[in-house]
């Protein structure tokens, strides 16, 4: 097991700790200069250009999380439930819903980037059905850009929560459902009072994965609106902000590894903290059979 552990150690665990270490130093390009304590964090959270960009990006990440939870996971739950009840053609649905998950994010991003252009497929479709006034520059308007990208991401991912929920509902003992059914419970109650409480563990898993996923959004933005989160930083997320500061490829010109590491550490603690919180809150709702 040592070959494996050494590779993981050198390329994952060591960088993680070095990242924490680096965030306490000031950097000149790629050379570490002096120990500055929490100065990088202070600049990130309070100094002028970083503060605005950081909280703007964090806000977008929150939008991502809320939209994904509300839309993607509830659609996933609905589809998973319907498939578990063997609705007509569920075997085919199960397979088709999972197709987009197997595509790489980059491919999906470029594909939908083309479709959402002002002259792209979506606008042509709206023309075709006579809804010209609904046409938009989907990725070019500040108000819409984030939502467009979130919807593309939801389009890609719905199959995943539905399969997880399907598997979870299958582990609910059939006798419980049959007993409730024979007692004459309605569909609505059957779902909310019996199935839902019993699949809370898988809801925890999906919630934690959603937290991690929406704090780490990067490729979707990169492929669809570019690294600087255009228009006017409306689609900027912590991931793209991190890339820009750490590698200095777009606006500042020179890489600022100190600030970049600080953002990395903040992502790390946010992910960890929010995951723990969501585990804690959903754990309280779990029931034992």
């Amino acid at each position, binding site marked *: 097991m040592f070959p*494996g552990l050494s590779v*993981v150690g050198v390329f994952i665990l060591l960088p993680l700790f070095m990242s924490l270490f680096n965030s306490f130093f000031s950097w000149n390009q790629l050379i570490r200069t002096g120990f500055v304590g929490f100065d990088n964090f202070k600049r990130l959270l309070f100094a002028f250009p970083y503060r605005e960009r950081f909280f703007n990006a964090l806000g977008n990440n929150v939008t991502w999380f809320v939209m994904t939870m509300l839309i993607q996971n509830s659609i996933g739950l*609905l589809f998973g439930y319907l498939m578990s009840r063997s*609705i*007509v053609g569920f075997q085919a649905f199960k397979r088709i819903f999972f197709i*987009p998950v197997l595509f*790489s994010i980059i491919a999906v991003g470029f594909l*939908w980037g083309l479709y959402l252009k002002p002259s792209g497929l979506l606008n*042509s479709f709206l023309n075709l059905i006579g809804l010209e006034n609904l046409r938009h520059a989907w990725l070019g308007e500040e108000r819409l850009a984030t939502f467009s990208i979130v919807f593309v991401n939801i389009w890609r991912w719905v199959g995943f929560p539905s399969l997880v929920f399907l598997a979870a509902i299958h582990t609910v003992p059939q006798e419980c459902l049959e007993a409730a059914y024979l007692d004459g419970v309605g569909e609505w109650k059957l779902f909310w009072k019996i199935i839902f409480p019993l699949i809370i563990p898988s809801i925890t898993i999906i919630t934690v994965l959603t937290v991690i996923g929406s*704090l780490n959004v990067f490729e979707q933005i990169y492929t669809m609106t570019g690294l600087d989160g255009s228009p006017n930083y409306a689609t900027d997320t912590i991931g793209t902000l991190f890339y820009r500061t750490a590698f200095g490829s777009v606006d500042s010109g020179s890489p600022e590894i100190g600030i970049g590491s600080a953002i990395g550490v903040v992502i790390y603690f946010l992910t960890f903290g929010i995951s723990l919180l969501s585990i804690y809150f959903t754990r309280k709702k779990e029931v034992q059979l």
Partner: protein
Amino acid sequence: MITDFKFKGASIPKKIFIICMFMVMFSYVILIVYPLFNMFLSSFKSNREILTTPFSLPSTFDFTNYRTVWIDKGFNQYFLNSLIVTVTAMAFVLLFGSMGAYGVARYAYKASTLVYMLFLSGIMLPLKAAIIPLFLIIKNLNLINTRLSVILIFMAMGLPSTVFILSGFMKAIPLELEYAARIDGCNDFQIYQRIVMPMTASAVALVTIYNAVPSGMISFSLWYFFNRTHLKPYL
């Protein structure tokens, strides 16, 4: 089963409910399939044709676009790079990962929990935070712009989940089988090779699919380590 949504013999409201839900799921299927189908159609069209008639079938099925991408734009080289990187990395991930998982699942020693936790932390920690030091390490090892760097990173990304999944499966193998093999004179490696690995074959297949589908993090890191175009993998 009694709780299945069966159309036959259901009450009228339930029939309507089933039809509505079926329509919802069916429209989602169209939403998934149509963009992909349109992408396929568009691959045979010229730019002008895509803009003027986005929904129609292509007038002729000509393969110029494929030729442009595959030969003129060097996609064959990218594809080869991806293939080399993925196959090499997967071979090592499966070898080291299954050995590591066997060690975690079956051998009791002082640090075994620690080793397991170290592997697990590779899944649970957000790796984006580690990308700068990773870049510096790769730079200090003089591996920038080499395939080896990506192979090593791919291995490191794939190993934690491999160990996690495989050790779960290996714990479920009955110990008696291993005792029997040992009585028949197998040494440790032979038990691993002849008893454990054949019994976890399905899990190995699962892990291979799970890791070979390019995950987000891997493509993320690939953007950094390739500046020279002829080494770029397709993403």
